[in-house]
């Protein structure tokens, strides 16, 4: 196609200008790719931090427990459920938990807490509470008599390792108060302020004993072999474990605020992207107009020879798109390079880390490399360029041949 040939060769005519335009376009494009990579790297980081700290990728509860938080709203048939989870291919780990509101008192103070009974062997595989021990040690077994409390709670109650504290709960069936004396065996410090302030961990059997429960639990947290399963609505898992009085929810449903915050940020980068594209497209507009003015006589010659107005416009659109394509290729390579570079070295989170939705992220960010932004931004950019190029194209289509020819070089 002769118009494409004209467009393409004209691009290489004023090399300096094409180089400058291409540089501007490619840097803009590469920045978008890199920004996207960082954003998704941060998102994965955040999701991982959220799910690995305590949430898990999914949780199963008895129907009604999440709204009532009553001690008697238990999971139906826990042994059958754990047997079944044990056999799931996509389940990497699971951990049953017993929950109760409790009052904890020390000689210095009183506070309400959430008492959580865990089986440390199972819990270790799922959450990283055991890795966040700031003092003392983690729960050692299901019937451990020690109590592991958050660092903030320890401060409020002025408790140290080995100190005694009294925990009061109400029993499941009778509602009678039940009290037990614990020794603080460990203090944890997660990135989550709420947990540091209001959680006390105990052995699951110890907790069951206090609450007068048989082999049962309020929650089973599940960790999948991949983060992706938690993002899939069509997974059979949800149906399979939402039966017989139980309900399985993904972490997205458990922490919707995390998801919606990211949704919003995603909209923001799309918007920033759009602005970037429009700016970059203006670089193209400027380049094309400059080249159009320089070549007015030449356009006059093409018109004299019988090039139709629409065809004149097409030459301009093709030239703009050619410039965009060159910029895109250079930008993709640059974006790829920068992303790969930072994938190797990571972007350090300075000092305290970044807090987002009550979760503090301290690990380095590794930008994610996906084909999606390349495709998405390329299409967006080409569309922008096309739309913007209609303006000089219109200008070229309306050139009067005699006028164009009277402009000698």
């Amino acid at each position, binding site marked *: 196609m002769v118009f494409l040939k004209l467009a393409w*060769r004209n691009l290489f*005519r004023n090399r300096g200008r094409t180089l400058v335009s291409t540089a501007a376009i490619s840097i803009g494009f590469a920045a978008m790719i890199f920004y996207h990579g960082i954003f998704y790297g941060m998102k994965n980081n955040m999701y991982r931090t959220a799910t690995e700290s305590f949430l898990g990728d999914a949780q199963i509860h008895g129907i009604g427990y999440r709204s009532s938080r009553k001690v008697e709203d238990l999971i139906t048939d826990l042994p059958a459920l754990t047997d079944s989870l044990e056999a799931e291919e996509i389940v990497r780990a699971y951990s049953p938990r017993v929950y109760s509101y409790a009052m904890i008192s020390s000689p210095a103070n009183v506070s309400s807490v959430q008492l959580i009974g865990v089986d440390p062997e199972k819990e270790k595989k799922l959450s990283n509470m055991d890795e966040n021990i700031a003092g003392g040690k983690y729960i050692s077994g299901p019937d451990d008599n020690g109590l592991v409390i958050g660092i903030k709670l320890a401060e409020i109650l002025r408790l140290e390792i080995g100190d005694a504290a009294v925990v009061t709960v109400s029993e499941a069936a009778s509602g009678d108060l039940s009290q037990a004396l614990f020794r603080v065996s460990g203090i944890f410090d997660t990135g989550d302020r709420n947990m540091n302030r209001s959680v006390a961990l105990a052995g699951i059997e110890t907790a069951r004993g206090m609450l007068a429960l048989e082999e049962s639990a309020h929650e089973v947290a599940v960790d999948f072999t991949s983060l992706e399963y938690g993002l899939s609505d069509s997974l059979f898992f949800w149906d399979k474990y939402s039966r017989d009085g139980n309900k399985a929810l993904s972490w997205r449903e458990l922490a919707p605020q995390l998801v919606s915050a990211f949704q919003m940020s995603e909209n923001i980068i799309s918007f920033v992207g759009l602005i970037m594209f429009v700016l970059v497209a203006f670089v193209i507009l400027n380049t094309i107009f400059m080249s159009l003015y320089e070549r007015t006589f*030449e356009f006059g010659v093409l018109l004299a*020879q*019988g*090039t139709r*107005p629409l065809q004149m416009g097409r030459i301009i659109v093709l030239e703009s798109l050619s410039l965009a394509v060159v910029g895109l290729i250079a930008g993709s390579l640059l974006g790829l390079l920068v992303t790969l570079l930072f994938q190797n070295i990571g972007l350090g989170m300075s000092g305290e880390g970044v807090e987002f939705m009550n979760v503090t992220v301290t690990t380095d960010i590794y930008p994610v490399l996906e084909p999606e932004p390349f495709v998405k931004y390329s299409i967006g950019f080409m569309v922008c360029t096309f739309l913007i190029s209609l303006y000089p194209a219109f200008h070229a289509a309306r050139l009067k041949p005699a006028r164009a020819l009277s402009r000698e070089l």
Partner: protein
Amino acid sequence: MEDSELILTEDLEKTYQDGVEVRAVRGIDLLIERGEFTAIVGPSGSGKTTFLNLISGLDTPTAGRVLLGGREIGNMSGTELSDFRRDHIGFIFQAYNLIPVLTATENIEYVMILQGIDRKKRRERVMELLDLVGLADKADTRPTMLSGGQKQRVAVARAMAARPSIILADEPTANLDSVTSGELLDMMHQLNRETGMTFIFSTHDTLVMQRAERLLTLRDGKITADETGSEKSIPGIDGKKKDEE
């Protein structure tokens, strides 16, 4: 366009209105027949370029009309006019004629691409034309690598590519030395005789005036003389080129 009355203008006028009013063409009635080899002369600013632009539909008249092969071009739409030029008129300009990013071959075949002629036929025609203008060896050369005379030869080949009935040349020899000009003119004259294509030049060049079979003199937008054959009175016939204004 089979008529022998190829170009007919009736009371043709063009007034430019860019700030000051310039009446570049003031009422020209003219008939040009098929196969003519005609030169338009006149001092700078007399309206030669404007007149050529009007009779080729590159510009629109302020008043009067132009009939090409009996068709009034003032009634054509933009696209119709483009297609008409493509099929019936070839252009040669003073300079910067050729598209610099295209080779000689590509410059010549451009109009045939617009006409939708297939590649094989195009290439045959290009070779034939390059032979005709004596540049068969420059087929793949870009204009920057050609001399002024060679460029104008390619321009002549290009103007003829679509086998138009009319070739309009606005000062085709202005940038050439007299030897090269003479060669180019000989070539065009021969093509005129062999193909019957009509050639119309605007020029300041006495060489062109000498070779022309009909000489039209323009002054202040009007035709003041219309001479053919031996009766032509050529300014500066003493052999020296007339001074460029």
